[in-house]
């Protein structure tokens, strides 16, 4: 299920990815929900941002992806719904979070190094790691 809003640029991107993937993943029913038109559903599934792509299997949510998604991330959600992935990766970082965490990491690394403050450098390293850890544990 894809939850969208009318003026959401990332929603269009995710929908385009879904159109390319949906037909190749068998046994998955796909539905698009407009959050403003169906606010009860958005509330029920605790939707905080659009787009949110949720995968259900046997009536239970098995994974979700919030925010902009690559074709690979959309495919992963579809495969989770189809059962091809029995233990879906439960973490995935949206593009905006990756950008913000990386920017914070770089800023703290540079500031810490310039000022000679070790814990700022370490904090920067933590934020850099938090922005990219999902790439290392696929």
């Amino acid at each position, binding site marked *: 299920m894809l939850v969208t*809003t009318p*003026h*959401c*640029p*990332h*929603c269009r991107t995710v929908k385009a990815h879904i159109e390319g993937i949906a037909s190749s993943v068998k046994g998955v029913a796909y539905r698009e929900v407009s*959050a*403003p038109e169906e606010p009860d559903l*958005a509330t029920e599934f605790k*939707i*905080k*941002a*659009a787009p949110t792509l949720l995968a259900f299997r046997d009536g239970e949510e098995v994974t979700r992806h919030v*925010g*902009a998604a690559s074709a690979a991330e959309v495919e992963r959600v579809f495969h989770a719904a189809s059962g091809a992935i029995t233990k879906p990766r439960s973490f995935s970082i*949206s*593009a*905006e*979070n990756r*950008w*913000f*965490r990386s*920017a*914070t990491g770089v*800023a*703290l690394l540079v*500031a810490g190094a310039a*000022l000679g*403050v070790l814990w*700022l450098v370490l904090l920067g390293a933590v*934020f850099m790691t938090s922005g990219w850890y999902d790439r290392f544990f696929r």
Partner: protein
Amino acid sequence: MNEANWERGARLAIGVVLLILGFAALSGVLAVLAIIVGLILTVTGAVGWCPIYSVLKTGTRKLTGADANPSA
């Protein structure tokens, strides 16, 4: 997350400036305050979540607001 992207950016920018001021330009209580506030702003900006907003059940990030700033 309960912060809009513009707010996250502002928190990051102000937070890092306060940290630099706290370590490089200020001294005494002002320096400590600048470092603490800078650290809070930096961390909340990076994660996009403010505990005070959470307690007050408010925030600058709305469904449509989140979409208004394409960052990817």
